[in-house]
């Protein structure tokens, strides 16, 4: 039996009369790279916020790493990592200080923080940037460091909310190599993106439109189903309601 990482059933969020997320259900396996796609306003952010415990659902259930999102938010927070589309690092702190801070709030001790700092600097080959203020580092590097920091406490699941926004193709490629590495280590990756070429890198993709999940499958199956050559076409066909 496969180990489930995320289990969502009939989850909804209503703001007054507006239904942002309408009765969605899906499951994500351990170590899977799960792409969460949809146009702006499709309900992606609302869904992610509910899964991370930032927003209380109106109805429905969800389990994150086996923990209930209503009752066990404490445990969920210790098990997940999060990186948002906005900068996830403090610009006026150096790389090492950022690592120490985020290690600190996830409860790592001094030795663990020293280990993780060395690990991240070696992994990204940025020992020279150790004591450089994050504000003076190029965007692409910042995003890679932010991802490394978001998995500093070895979470079971990491939520990436448009992590590669505004980053050049080469850096995006490197970013995805980092994602593959962590997925290989058994960390579940839950990622939203605007770039359709990135969608192809995911194991499975869900396409959201107007609060509901229109399609959920592997990129290959989706392309076949919508008889498209690439994910761009799939996306457009779904968004236009064909």
């Amino acid at each position, binding site marked *: 039996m496969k180990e489930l990482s995320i289990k969502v059933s009939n989850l909804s969020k209503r703001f007054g009369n507006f239904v942002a997320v309408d009765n969605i259900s899906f499951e994500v396996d351990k170590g899977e790279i799960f792409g969460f796609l949809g146009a702006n306003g499709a309900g992606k952010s609302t869904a992610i916020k509910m899964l991370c415990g930032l927003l*209380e659902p109106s109805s429905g259930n969800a389990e994150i790493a086996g923990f209930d999102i209503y009752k066990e938010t404490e445990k969920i927070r210790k098990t997940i990592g999060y990186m948002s589309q906005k900068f996830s690092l403090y610009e006026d702190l150096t790389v090492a200080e950022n690592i120490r801070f985020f290690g600190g709030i996830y409860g790592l001790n001094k030795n663990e923080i020293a280990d993780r700092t060395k690990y991240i600097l070696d992994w990204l080959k940025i020992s020279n940037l150790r004591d450089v203020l994050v504000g003076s580092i190029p965007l692409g590097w910042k995003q890679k460091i932010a991802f490394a920091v978001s998995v500093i406490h070895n979470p079971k699941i990491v939520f990436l909310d448009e992590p590669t926004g505004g980053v050049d193709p080469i850096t995006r490629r490197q970013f995805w190599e980092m994602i593959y590495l962590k997925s290989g280590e058994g960390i579940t990756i839950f990622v939203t993106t605007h770039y359709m070429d990135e969608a192809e890198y995911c194991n499975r993709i869900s396409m959201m439109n107007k609060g509901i999940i229109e399609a959920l499958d592997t990129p290959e199956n989706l392309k076949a189903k919508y008889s498209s050559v690439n994910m761009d076409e799939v996306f457009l066909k779904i968004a236009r309601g064909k």
Partner: protein
Amino acid sequence: MKRFFAFVRKEFYHIFRDKRTLLILFGMPLAQILLFGFAITNEIKNADIGVLDNSKDVTSLELINRIKASGYFKLAEYGNNTESIEESFRKGKIKLAIIFDRDFGKNFQLGKNPELQIIADASDPNTANTLINYISSIVMSFTHEKNINNKISLINTEFRMRYNEELKGVYLFVPGLITIILMLVSAMMTSISITKEKELGTMELMLVSPMKPYTVIIAKVIPYTFLSIINSAIILILGKFVFDVPIQGSLILLMAEIILFILSALSLGILISSITDSQQVALMISLVGLLLPVILLSGFIFPLENMPLWLQYFANIIPAKWFMIIIKSIMLKGSGITDIWLETLLLAGFTLVFALISVVKFKMRLE
């Protein structure tokens, strides 16, 4: 606890790396106290005056000399006629004019109501008032002295200005400045630093982390509490050693009250940051909603007693008003807790209410 300290340390990095924050934190209090202490003062020395001596005798000369010797006035013009005095007023050469009646000296010797006219330039009412007061007291003591053997009996009034015998402005400015600066640093800086994290999106990161929301808030305000305490110490020390402002009461009580006020300002800051997500708005609310009332309605610059009744009632809900009373009583009168327990209780009450509202508000924002 480890998480907590990691956060506090980060907060100190933010503060010490931002030059503007540092300037507001430490530069401004210093600049303000030196400005208020040295430059802006209610006392007037060497005010230019004009004299029109129609009497020209021993008595009038003696009085003029007495006035000159007081140190408050400088004879800028010894006029010959009313027109020249009038012109000097218009040109702003003199602030005050003394006009002796033609029979001033004669009547004075005879004890027959000598007349002296004093005209002040009231385009600046405060100065005019002060100068008139100075002159009156000089004239009064002069009259009294000369009348010892005379038949007119005068009531000898003696004034004492308790708690500030020399009517020094700094006595009021030091407590006032502490109030304003604590309010500014604690409320404004906290609200800005919290909304900054909201704007940058880093607050979200805190909220998905195992840090509890109230830990985030407490860790956020600890550095500002600490710095505010240091700030008030600097102002007190400057006040004491540069401007001779006394601290009559207990220093421990004073610091305890200061910390209580800091807490009330901090909870106001948190409250502001829970209303808005933008640094700009937080800044505006702090300036208009907090700083202005503190300056205008705490009794720092304008006496509350002269305000319309509704405004006086309104001032009652401003914590700074009560803190001003407390800090002045302790510093200048040497009051103990038994004298100011009511004000302290009110201040504590405000703090509690603000803190409760901001905790509830902050929670609501998370759901």
